[in-house]
Every structure is written in structure tokens, then in C-alpha cells.
């Protein structure tokens, strides 16, 4: 029997609070994994997380404090706009 499932298999928090999220799309045959494909995206401090996986939302909720969000925004504003 072929079964497909999706998990968030890797969440990496960078020093400035950006969160790298990796989703694994797994295909199994008779319970044995035969393929695993990755999908990635990044969540910046202050970014909308309403559509994220619950695990990701919990991590972002803990990491993206007002201090972290404000510091990230300041760093963005300090960049030279091209």
C-alpha cells in the first residue's frame, strides 16, 4: 500500500530570529519509506504566521518576542535601499 504523509522535519532558528522551516513530503510503500522530498521557506520576525504548521507557530511564538521583532526591523531599516 502506498501512503503519503507530510511532516515539518526541520526547524532552524537563526541568530537574528529568522526561522528556516523544512517540510518533508514522504512516500511509503507498506510502511517503508521509498521517497522523501523537501520544501523550504523562511519566516522573518514579525511575519504573518497564521498559515503555518502548529509546531512552527509555537516556535515562532516563543522566538519572535517584541524585542526580537523590533531588532530585526531596525536591522532591515538600516540596510541601504537600492
Amino acid at each position, binding site marked *: 500500500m502506498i501512503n503519503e504523509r507530510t511532516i515539518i522535519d526541520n526547524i532552524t532558528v537563526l541568530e537574528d530570529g529568522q526561522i528556516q522551516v523544512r517540510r518533508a513530503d514522504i512516500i511509503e510503500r507498506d510502511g517503508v519509506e521509498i521517497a522523501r522530498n523537501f*520544501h523550504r521557506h523562511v519566516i522573518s520576525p514579525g511575519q504573518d504566521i497564521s498559515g503555518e504548521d502548529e509546531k512552527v507557530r509555537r516556535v515562532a511564538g516563543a522566538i519572535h518576542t517584541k524585542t526580537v521583532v523590533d531588532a530585526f526591523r531596525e536591522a532591515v531599516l538600516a540596510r541601504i535601499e537600492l
Partner: protein
Amino acid sequence: MAINVTPIPKLSAFAVPTITFGTAAAGTAPTVIRSDATISGAVTAQTSVDDAIARYNGTAGQIQGYTSNSPTISDAGVFTLPAGQIVFPATQNASTGATTLDDFEQGLFTPVLWDNDNNSSKGQGYTAQLGRYQKVGRIVTIQFTMAVSDLGTLVTSQYAKVGGLPYPSLAGTNNYATIFCGYGDSLALSSAGDTVGGFVELNASYIGLREWTATGGVGGFLISNYSVNGMVMMGATYEAAA
């Protein structure tokens, strides 16, 4: 078989420490290994070739014999994989070494059209939205196709960005990586002959799009220039933060 160890300190006045294997039959001497003995060829696999790497089979300590799939290391340090793969950890074991390869991964990402809000949930609609990436060390190579069917509430007078990149880029002044645009359709460029360019923003996971509108260089590429039904095929190579 009994093993008797005679731990006698090596002093000039005493005998060399020895290990004795077994009990000798009448008329024969037991096998004795002196501590100053040189053992050669005592540990062997059933089969081997020159430069083969010794590895264990199971947990009993038995050395695995060589097969045609086995890797080798030459006397010059050349590592050869006749079959198999190199698998990196699921989570990067990041290194700062300039000659250390510490990561490989490939997968998909979903490009999204952003205005200044960097928000994917402003009612944007797409008829094509596929990105692929490969990361080798800190170098990320991406390619994507994005065709927009609905601009939603994106502000048409603001610069167009492509969000959703798989990794944030490296920070630091002037560490910009440029993108290339090889195909476009149903865009609303300022004038025919202009080309679309852009760059990966510093310490960010999006691309700032620009249009070559002047003899001196680029101008803004706005949401209105992307326009409803606008489609691009783009790629970039940039350095990730780790």
C-alpha cells in the same frame, strides 16, 4: 582457551612482560607474545584489495571483507566511491572552514509575489508557482517559474519582490547576489527592449526586482509592471547565512 597475562615491569633485571595463549601440550611450548613484539598481518579480512578501508560487520567486532562496492583511500589520500552515496546530516553541521564541505540538500520552494509588506496573504493568485533549489555548502542555486493570475491587494505602485526563497541570504554590506531572468510573458514593462533584473536582498529570503529602464542602469520594477497574468522564469545563485 585460557589467557595468562604476566604483568612484570620491564626492568633490565627482569623478563619482558608476556601474554601466554593456551596451555601447552606435553612436549610443546605455549604461544607467548612478548610486550616488545611486532605484530604484523595478525588482523585481516577474508578478502581485500589495496587501499580498501577496513570496517566492521555487525557488532561482534568482525572485520568486513572487501566488495566491489567498498570505498577506498589511496596512499595519496584520494577517497573513491565505486558505488553508494555521501549522505549529509539531516541538520547541517555548519563549519566555518574555507575548505570544508558541510552541507548538501535539494528540494522545492514556493515563490510568491510581494510588495513592501512582504506578505503572502494579500489575495495573490497564481497559475504557476514552482521553485527548485540545491544547496552545496553555503551556496544556494534556485530556479523558479511564477505566473500571477490575481494581484489581490498588492499595492501596484510599490516595488515587486519575489518572496519564499528557501534560505536567508548572507548579511553584510554589498554582499548582494544578482538574479537572471530568462523568460517573461504578459508583463507590463516600461518600454519594449527593457529587461528585468534584480538581486537577493541582504540577510533576507526574497528578491528585489528591477527593470533596466535607463542608459545609466535600473529603475523600479513595480507590481504594476509585473501585472495580472505576468509570468517570469528566473534563477539565482546566492550565499546563505550558514
